[in-house]
């Protein structure tokens, strides 16, 4: 509790990417219209942002992420951040403003000419306002919006979005949420926490969501620990989301990938021979080629062994395939108390899975949740939820792996006559394998109303204690 203690511990840990923009980085540029362009920085190249202008790549190199620039004569000028403006309340209303009125005498051609003359965006907007017939009638709020709209059109500026995992996920989600299988930033955050991803941990991931899960896990591992991914292709999987993260090599080097064939314990991968057919290398080329092949196949066999040795700390699944089949396959490779997190854009997929898992010993407390996220516009005097919002960030099932003890019996056993066979029609018998205390309080697979209420309070740990 000593004051200042720990300040010396301000660490020198290498961050996951370079602190400044470097050649080879893929950056996200936000243009005034709100659109985001993704640009790979190559040496001696020019970046074109359409009507917003162009500039040489070198202008960005060495700059920190997150700044806003104005393009002036192909040079970048850093724009200072603009504070929000308070808007004065006035008596103005839209009582006298009618749709379809001719209000702007300045024609499109005239505006184009002004733009070509190199006039600054703010000057053009000023001219438009001067000419606008009803501008003075507008409320101050409306005037602000008018100016903002015009600025979106004419200003030759852009911002470099800092490639945090949140920002990159949001960019992809807004661009095409199907490719992320609906993994919205809030869902991704929940997945990472529920899976207990921590530096030094060892995780399994099945990511058919463009690599958003893989990127996020790597971001949270920070080059320490291990990530094994299992994919559905025979070459190293493409995880395109990772491109914008601009990870250092140390961050990604802890990841290896298998596919559903090579991850099969009963299958022996067909590996091409690494020995020359004649017993002797015919050329240096052949030697290098075969050595390379040997390194690759050794690595594959090592990765397989590592998977089969098990004791992984967690499993994250975001897949188009049957999650139950994946859990069946990978469950043996998880350590005790490991977290399993399955995300799906469809509620049926996770609820069916929950229904399957609650009959199986070894899976503790499967719970299904759906995230709700609402973003607000916060402007002085104009704070309200955004008019457009995302409908769904998908559904998450979380469950914990346990080592079962078949001899353990519930304290309530005298109430629930134990039925021997799984899959029997009797509802109480279905719950018996996981049974016991759980069955008594919350877990009975049947739908008695008492059982349901007890789950209500507890699922996902959301006991309501924050009523204020």
């Amino acid at each position, binding site marked *: 509790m000593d004051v200042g203690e720990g300040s010396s511990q301000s660490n020198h840990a290498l961050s996951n990417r370079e602190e400044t923009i470097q050649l080879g980085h893929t950056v996200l540029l936000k243009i005034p219209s709100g659109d985001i362009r993704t640009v790979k920085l190559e040496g001696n190249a020019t970046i074109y942002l359409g009507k917003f202008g162009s500039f040489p790549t070198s202008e960005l190199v060495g700059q920190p992420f997150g700044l806003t620039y104005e393009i002036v004569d192909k040079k970048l000028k850093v724009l200072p951040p603009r504070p929000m403006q308070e808007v004065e309340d006035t008596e103005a209303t839209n009582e006298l403003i009618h749709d379809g009125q001719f209000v702007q005498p300045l024609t499109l051609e005239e505006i184009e000419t002004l733009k070509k003359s190199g006039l600054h965006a703010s000057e053009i907007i000023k001219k438009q306002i001067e000419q606008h017939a009803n501008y003075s009638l507008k409320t101050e709020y409306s005037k602000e919006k008018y100016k903002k709209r015009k600025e979106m059109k004419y200003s030759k500026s852009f911002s470099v979005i800092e490639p945090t995992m949140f920002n990159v996920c949001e960019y992809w989600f807004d661009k095409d949420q199907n490719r992320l299988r609906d993994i919205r930033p809030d869902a991704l955050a929940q997945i990472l926490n529920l899976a207990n991803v921590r530096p030094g941990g060892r995780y399994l991931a099945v990511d058919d969501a463009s690599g958003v899960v893989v990127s996020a896990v790597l971001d949270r591992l920070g080059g320490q620990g291990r990530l094994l991914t299992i994919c559905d292709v025979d070459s190293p999987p493409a995880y395109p989301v990772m491109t914008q993260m601009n990870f250092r090599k140390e961050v990604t080097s802890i990841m290896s990938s298998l596919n559903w064939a090579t991850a099969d314990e009963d299958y022996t991968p067909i590996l091409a021979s690494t020995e020359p057919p004649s017993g002797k290398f015919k050329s240096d080329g052949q030697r290098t080629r075969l050595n390379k092949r040997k390194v690759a196949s050794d690595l594959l066999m090592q990765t397989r062994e590592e998977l089969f040795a098990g004791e992984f700390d967690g499993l994250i699944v975001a897949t188009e395939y049957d999650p139950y089949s994946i859990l069946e396959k990978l469950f043996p490779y998880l350590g005790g108390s490991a977290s399993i997190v399955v995300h799906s854009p469809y509620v049926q997929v996770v609820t069916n899975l929950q229904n399957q898992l609650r009959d199986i010993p070894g899976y503790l407390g499967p719970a299904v949740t759906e995230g709700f996220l609402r973003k607000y516009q916060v402007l002085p005097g104009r704070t309200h939820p955004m008019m457009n919002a995302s409908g769904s960030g998908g559904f998450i099932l979380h469950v914990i792996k346990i080592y079962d003890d078949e001899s353990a019996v519930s304290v309530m056993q005298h109430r629930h006559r134990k039925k021997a066979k799984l899959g029997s029609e009797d509802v109480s018998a279905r719950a018996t394998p996981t049974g016991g205390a759980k069955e008594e309080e919350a877990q009975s697979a049947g739908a008695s109303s008492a059982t349901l209420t007890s789950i209500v309070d507890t699922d996902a740990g959301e006991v309501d204690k*924050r009523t204020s």
Partner: protein
Amino acid sequence: MWSTAREIAAGDVVIAWMTRDIVQPLVVTPGKELNSKYGYYRHSELVGVPYGSKIRSRNGKGFIHLLRPTPELWTLALPHRTQILYLADIAFVVSWLDLKPGSNVIEAGTGSGSFSHSVARTIGPAGHLWSFEFHETRANKAKEEFSRHGMDGVVTLTHRNVCKDGFTVVDTVDAVFLDLPAPWDAVEHAKQALRKDRTTRICCFSPCMEQVLRTVSALNEAGFTEITMYETLLRPHQVDAAPPLTPVSVVGEKLKQSEARREEKRLRQIANARAGAERRAAKRKAEDDDTLEGTEGKRAKTAGQSAAAGTSVADAASAPVREVAQEAAGATKICLSKTFPEVRGHTSYLTFAVLLPATVMSTVLAVSTSEQPSTAVSAEPTPPPPSAVEVSDCDCCIFRGEGWRS
């Protein structure tokens, strides 16, 4: 932090999961016993058991699960000293603030430590969390807890009122999280603590909109940008295995059959009544003149009987069909889900903002801001499409004049 070994050792903090409702932390102390409704256990017998094991009670009645603590389980199990943060908010804040291994973070106040554990896990031994709590007893309790959980290297806890006295570090942290009644009083202090060589982030956690508005004002005045606000919640789903929904044709059949039975009963009663009447009449007649005129009544009775027999045969045939259908339904249950009837409706508003590096901030002072052209760095990162803009024009009237300057 907590043990990462495969097996439980003496002195480990473990989570004893009895039911979904009852999740308790436990320090494994040989010599001690755990005695509960769910059985009777000796701590010494828990040593050496793998994490994640189901353990049966010594008396054979009941069992518990011994789990490795995670911040998420801790949130369920922790002793509440204050209102605490839950998964949805914690996860979202950690993600927006871009916390990861090696991050330096400030948190105020510590409260019950729900958020602290999650942050400590994510930033790891290479990062550092400075946690501040103004309530002395709570601070001491939290400090004990952090020590017991092996977090001393990662967390520095200070008993201090940060709104009055500020933070203990300057130009050091990547992110600040304020869960205070008046976060606006700590905004300037937070700015001091944030490092100036790169972009840093802040989050203020407040349940009331009035607090948000004051916070936003303070953040804006202090030079923070990209001010955004979110609300996030979890909706738990209840999953039921139920027989397939019955088609109305089945209901219709049932109704038809009961209608037929009713009709049959009515006819039988009419027939019976008639037969009775005839019998009585015949009896009377027989009493009057003992002749063979009762045959007609006899015939009527037999006709009624055969009709009744016909319907009961049909009824008997349809009954097994229904039973079979119900049995099949029982075998193939369908899986249904719905949101729980009562869920948390609100926790707090999460107000976020960014502080740009000092090199950029210094230019702000040099330039008169009011005349600057607008740029994409604005308080409204995704401008709504024009149509929405017009609609919101009216909506703004509702909000206008409320609380902003109060």
